[in-house]
């Protein structure tokens, strides 16, 4: 379903990803953990199509189609979603306008009929209520003045609206208090199904208490050096990375 093979990526001559490979099947949740600087966020950004990186080798396939030749917006409409570690604040664009533009772009790209404004509003209200997002928040400029929790819930709202096949969560737990973490994790769990897959990048095992992974990978120096099940995360929490990165 989502396959990354032999991906080598550099930034200004520094190799950040080094022959990185990962296969994600339908409905699977893969957690990626690793010390700072191991290339986790780079992986997320390269998958989503950020332009600051040079891909030297490898492929990123979604349902057999190579995403590397596609622009970020095309990757999104093909079904890839990146939940940002630091969602960007955009003054002057209301959250609602942004959501509408985004959803319309998806419908148009997939030859679906664009929702009427009342239907769109109904859909947004329904999905926001599930995430405890009130109306006033979506009328405010995108992420401007949002608390950490609001920003992350807004990311999950977008995920819920855009209905992606593969979701990459880049340290979604950072900056969240315990209640916000639970709410965001519940939002993610509600979106889990047999087709939709997740790559959850995190530093802390705590998130994985809520979002149960099928696989846990340790990433170091731009590649996966160890793979296990959820017990690997517990092990890391106890003894750190030292046993793996010698």
């Amino acid at each position, binding site marked *: 379903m989502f396959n990354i093979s032999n991906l080598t990526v550099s930034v200004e001559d520094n190799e950040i990803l080094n022959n990185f490979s990962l296969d994600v099947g339908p409905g699977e949740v893969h957690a990626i953990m690793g010390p700072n600087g191991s290339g986790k966020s780079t992986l997320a950004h390269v998958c989503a*199509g950020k*332009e600051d990186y040079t891909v030297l080798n490898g492929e990123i396939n979604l349902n057999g189609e190579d995403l590397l030749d596609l622009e970020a917006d095309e*990757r999104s409409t093909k079904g890839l979603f990146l939940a940002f570690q630091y*969602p960007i604040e*955009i003054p002057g*664009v209301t959250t609602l306008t942004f959501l509408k533009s*985004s959803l319309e*772009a998806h419908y148009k790209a997939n030859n679906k009929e664009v929702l009427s404004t009342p239907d769109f509003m109904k859909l947004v209200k329904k999905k926001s209520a599930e995430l405890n997002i009130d109306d006033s928040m979506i009328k405010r*400029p995108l992420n401007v003045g949002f608390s950490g929790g609001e920003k992350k819930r807004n990311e999950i709202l977008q995920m819920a609206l855009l209905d992606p096949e593969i979701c990459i969560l880049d340290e979604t737990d950072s900056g969240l208090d315990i209640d916000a973490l639970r709410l965001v994790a519940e939002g993610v769990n509600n979106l889990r199904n047999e087709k939709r897959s997740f790559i959850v990048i995190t530093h802390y095992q705590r998130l994985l208490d809520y979002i149960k992974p099928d696989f846990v990978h340790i990433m170091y120096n731009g590649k996966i050096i160890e793979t296990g099940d959820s017990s690997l995360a517990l092990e890391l929490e106890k003894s750190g990375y030292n046993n793996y990165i010698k």
Partner: protein
Amino acid sequence: MLTEEKNINVEEQVVAYCKDNIINQDIKHPLYPARLGAYELFRAHGLPTTRNEQWKYTNISSKLERIPSQSDVKPVPVNLDNFINNFEIVKKAKENKDSVLVFMDGAMQSQLSIVNTDTKTVSVTSLKKDPIPDWAVKLNSEKHSQNVNEMFNLNTALMEDGAIININNNKGIADNIYIIHVGNNDGFYNYRHMINVQNGAHVNIIEFKISNKVDIEALYTSSIIWQIGNNCVVNNVKYQAHNQITIGFNQQYADIANDTEFNSFTISSGSKLLREFRDINCNGSNSNISISGINLLDGDSHIDTMLSVKHKAPNTISREKYKSILNDNSKGVFQGNIIVDDIAQKTIAKQSIDALILSKNAEHDAKPELEIYADDVQCGHGATTGQISQDSLFYLKSRGIPEEEAKRLLVHAFLTDALEEIKDKKILETFADVMNNMLNRVSKGNLNV
């Protein structure tokens, strides 16, 4: 070392043009003394150069090579009425029975103009064809006698036509007046509007200036002189979309009395060279003014805004908010001067100048200045120049929004708080189509409206 050699040829051409014009004037005309005086001042000083601080970033000689040739007869095209009526703004104005004044190449087209006489509060006369009211002669002479602005003097010496508008107290029911100006032939045009807003009058004046064709070579000077009384509300929006070979020098003067609101907003695009000189005097207390605008530049366009706001009485508020978007090899210049006299205590003055640069070769020079002689004031200014944030662009694209649409959203976001300075929401709605069209072109990298 001199940074600029004067283009003697073009200056001689302009002086000779003025001289011919003066010789042909009726010396008994009430505006003649001002014309003659202005001609003599212009002849003495010539065209301004970059050695003049107010022209430091704009070299006229490098843009103005000659006076465009023109024929004596400028026939009004048979389709001019259709051309004008095609604009949604004009259609709506006519539907609403608003006054619509049509000018072609600086000359009023009475047969195409409509003045709403129902309200009995508006009167419009032509500077060229009608007797000049006393207030206009006086206002003209006052502005001329104290003036050192070369391009205003040139305009005074050469003014051919213009609208002289008087608005009486309309008891809060605003009169709407549209001034449509179409550039239709090659040539050198000079026109002046004078507007007298009587105590208690409310008025919306919308100016719409467009080039009919892309290859019309026009050089023009224009002035608009406002005299605004007590307890008035004046909303003025000027939209000018010239072709890339037009050169224009616009002067705006306004004198504002007590307890008055004056919002003046300019949207400019195109032009080989466009100078926007705005000189605003808050003479009375408790006035609240906004002098703001948006500039869209591409190709080799050069737009220079020179703004001077003088607070001459206590308790006045001014805001100047300008946003510019620059592409290709264009250049934007902004000099904004706020002067607070010693008696103008409790003044609040805020100025912000922001530029969004879309190409490597575009340039924006901003020079905000504050001169404060009172001690109990709140004054501030800020200037920023930047590019579209790549992080913002990536964020929008990562949600499926194509690059063009993403840029459109970001440019719109950049312009939003300036557009909020168009205080009359009906006028803002009137411009909705124009703005949408403009934003679509901006996001495609084409700013030419």
